[in-house]
């Protein structure tokens, strides 16, 4: 945006403020505004900055193709600074002041929970691009990342299979907050259902940013020496991963003996690590940079051109952002307007191609169909795909947990839909407070 433009926008804003709802800023007629709500400073900046760049890249690409509904798209970027209450404030600012048509943003579940009431109150749409713990389905949110049944459970299935090493003993190593707690609750129940004995499951929580993993890694080694094939399921978050993997490498825990499968470690996180001693440890995602499809090759090359660096990696949340953006574009085109309810009505059932050679379809519960990919870390910091499933429909309310059995979500009609429908009692209840 040029200075002049910004002045005009400011002027327009001033006019709106003084004249109330009567005046519409002149500039708004020419463009459709899109909100980008990602932390550019603070602890989450490490992950979220890339997504901000991705959104700007996607919007730029769309504008080159002629924009949307004959108008150019305009990104409005705000910085909620990894501060959860500030997310809500910034979301309100985007919707009420800037008048954006949709918002792409958030990373942590805490930030998503923080902005939810704002999106409900002002009736706008949030596209949420990160894998999360499930147990949610809202009218105003499209979840383009994985639900637990699209990441955690297939990963565990893979390790249990003969191909994955017939694992019999499990360490669930996690950071102490809502996503790992819920995921571990689901996983523990799932493992017990599969006949794993309770003494073969060890759950351990560590604080955020934990840096001294000596005791934990030694405990994993000891737990793994009981004669049964052992694996670690890691929901360790963010910065704590680097010291964890460094300690694993130093204590000589090799992937052939005790593989570690992680749900929060992607190409970006590995960029800061020397992976020679980590070859074979696993990650489960819906996308890897190493996916060998023409769509992905084109995406990576365009991305490198846009960001002007051919060493910048791509990762799973980027693909989720890509899917979310394309779905929104398709829905707006189908509805012929950016009006929230019309777009929400149009988006359910829409499909767009994903980067792994399949399609992503929006389900009535506002989750997507996604393939599950299991990758092994390679010495060059990339993942090698050792297993890829067909598209799995995202399940908002996990069937594994007894309290969620028979709960469905259906937003086919955004006005009368329900996010927590109990098929047993045929009632639409409020979600239990989490």
């Amino acid at each position: 945006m040029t200075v002049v433009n910004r002045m005009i926008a400011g002027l327009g804003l001033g006019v709106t403020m003084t004249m109330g709802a009567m005046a519409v800023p002149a500039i708004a007629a020419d463009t459709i505004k899109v909100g980008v709500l990602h932390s550019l400073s603070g602890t989450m900046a490490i992950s979220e900055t890339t997504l901000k760049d991705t959104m700007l890249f996607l919007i730029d690409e769309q504008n080159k193709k002629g924009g949307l509904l004959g108008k150019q798209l305009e990104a409005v970027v705000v910085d909620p600074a990894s501060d959860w209450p500030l997310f809500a404030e910034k979301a309100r600012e985007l919707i009420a002041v800037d008048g954006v048509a949709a918002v792409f943003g958030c990373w942590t579940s805490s930030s998503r929970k923080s902005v939810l009431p704002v999106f409900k109150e002002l009736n706008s749409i949030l596209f949420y691009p990160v894998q999360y713990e499930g147990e949610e389905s809202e009218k105003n949110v499209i979840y383009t990342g994985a639900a637990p049944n699209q990441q955690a459970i297939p990963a565990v299935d893979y390790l249990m299979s003969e191909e994955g090493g017939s694992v019999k003993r499990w360490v669930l190593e996690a950071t102490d907050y809502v996503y790992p707690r819920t995921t571990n609750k689901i996983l523990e129940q799932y493992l017990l259902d599969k006949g794993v004995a309770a003494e073969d499951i060890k759950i351990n929580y560590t604080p955020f940013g934990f840096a001294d993993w000596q005791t934990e890694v030694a405990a994993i080694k000891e737990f793994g020496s009981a004669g049964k094939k052992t694996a670690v399921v890691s929901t360790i978050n963010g910065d704590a991963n680097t010291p964890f993997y460094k300690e694993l490498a130093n204590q000589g825990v090799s992937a052939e003996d005790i593989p570690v499968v992680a749900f929060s470690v992607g190409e970006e996180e590995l960029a800061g690590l020397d992976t020679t001693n980590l070859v074979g440890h696993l990650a489960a995602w819906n996308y890897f940079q190493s996916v060998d499809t023409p769509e992905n090759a084109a995406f990576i090359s365009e991305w490198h051109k846009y960001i002007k660096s051919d060493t910048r990696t791509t990762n799973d949340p980027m693909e989720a952002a890509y899917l979310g953006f394309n779905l929104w574009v398709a829905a707006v085109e189908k509805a012929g307007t950016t009006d929230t309810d019309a777009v929400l009505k149009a988006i359910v059932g829409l499909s767009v191609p994903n980067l792994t050679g399949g399609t992503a379809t929006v389900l009535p519960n506002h989750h997507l169909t996604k393939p599950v990919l299991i990758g092994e870390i390679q010495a060059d910091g990339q993942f090698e795909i050792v297993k890829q499933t067909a598209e799995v429909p995202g399940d908002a309310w996990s069937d594994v947990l007894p309290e969620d059995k028979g709960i469905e979500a259906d937003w086919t009609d955004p006005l009368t839909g329900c996010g927590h429908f109990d098929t047993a009692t045929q009632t639409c209840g409020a979600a239990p407070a989490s």
Partner: protein
Amino acid sequence: MTNRILRLIAVLFALALSPLPALAQANDFAVMVQALGQGGFPDREAAMNALVATGDERVPPILQAMSDGTLYLRKSDQRVLFAAKSGSEFKLTDPVDGSDAGTAVSADIEKIKVNNGLRGKIRTAIGTMTLLSPDSASRLSAAQSILKNADPAMLPLLDSALAAETDPKIKSTMDLARAVIVLKSDAVLDDKRAAVDTIAAHGDQAAQTVLVNALAAAPDELKPVIQTGIDAIGRNLQLWQVAQNLLYGVSLSSVLLLAAIGLSITFGVMGIINMAHGEMVMLGAYTTFVVQELIRNFAPGLMDYSLAFAVPAAFLFTALVGIAIERGIIRWLYGRPLETLLATWGLSLALQQVVRTLFGPTNQMVSPPSWMTGAFDVGGLSITWNRLWIVVFAIAVFAILQLVLNRTALGLQMRAVTQNRRMASSMGIRTPFVDAMTFGLGSGVAGMAGVALSQIDNVSPNLGQGYIIDSFMVVVFGGVGNLWGTLIGALMLGVGNKLLEPQFGAVLGKIIILVLIILFIQWRPRGLFALKGRSIEQ
């Protein structure tokens, strides 16, 4: 001569193992190698077994390349080739006759994939084939892989290798492997009993695992013997466990000491509440990254010595930044602790954002030099090299700092100024200069800590935040203004934390430590080693 016979035995033995009839002829060998590139993981495994069955000495390097991910398939003619990356191209070599096969770009060739399961099998196969190799390192890894698999069919091969082995370390591994195999096989009871004794004598975790596994399948007469063995190892391990936890504690203490010792000068000696202390540590870590990048680009041969350059570089750089901060901000705020706190906190945010803008928000890779990777065993203790060097480094930094404070003119002036500023000033000491130097020293030491922390933690803009609270805790607990207090404080907190962690978990352990510190500070507000004297009362 004996060697050749042994080799022959190995080949024959491998033949006997193989599920396929071995028709090892020159052409067939090439065909068999090509088969590695086709089909899925099970096909690849079959192809590998067929290759192993030939007993050909060209096989281990091929399998090793496959496991390392340097074996590729050329898409145009489906040939399996070694590929070595040079620049943007791959140099291709034929694995069968070693001839040059030209070059290719990454789009033309495809890596032959292996997964964890296959990698394990490759290791075993290489093990079988290299047990008689003249190279002692490959013999050792061969013995270890046989130990891991403990296939009774290996026994004759192992026996012959054992007879020829002279290296005591390899011999002991082979002995253990032999005992494990005997225990599994249908040998007579006395042999098995001897085998249990051999295993129990090893006394480590691996030996215990072997015995636990054997217990279920063992005949009833043997069970009590095995159980005794397990119990003996268990008692032994428990003792080592305590020692190991103490060691972890010392290692954590050294990290705490490094992070806090700079603060014990700026906060402890000068009384400045420096919230940007963690960012000095972070700048030190980034200096390490920059130094490594320079070395990587201009003198790759010196990579192993990169930290030797990084330590002085980090000290100088952060010391200069420290002096600039003192001259630019802090000197205007002496005697106003609340403003200092706010100003330095703002400064810490600003520094983080500057680094984030310059280097990007993602973690930077600082590679460990080869002498800091891996671990070694002392009795039942497993000591990792990087932690050991960090302990040594922390002690060295502490000792040097003591020397500087107690034996140099600058140290004398620092102590004089902090004890009685006006008196020092009237004795002709340039107090502003000493203030700047002291703050620079504290910052420089924090920068050196950053070099060490870059080896175990993320090099990211947030690095410092993780250490600032711990640093203040150590300094306050140890007693403000006393380096020895910082040392003892770090030791007590580190060891205490690591002793609590196995019982209570990391989250609760940390809470307990915090509560204990609060109670302690209630009881002794000046910390462990309180400075006595008039200056304290000011």
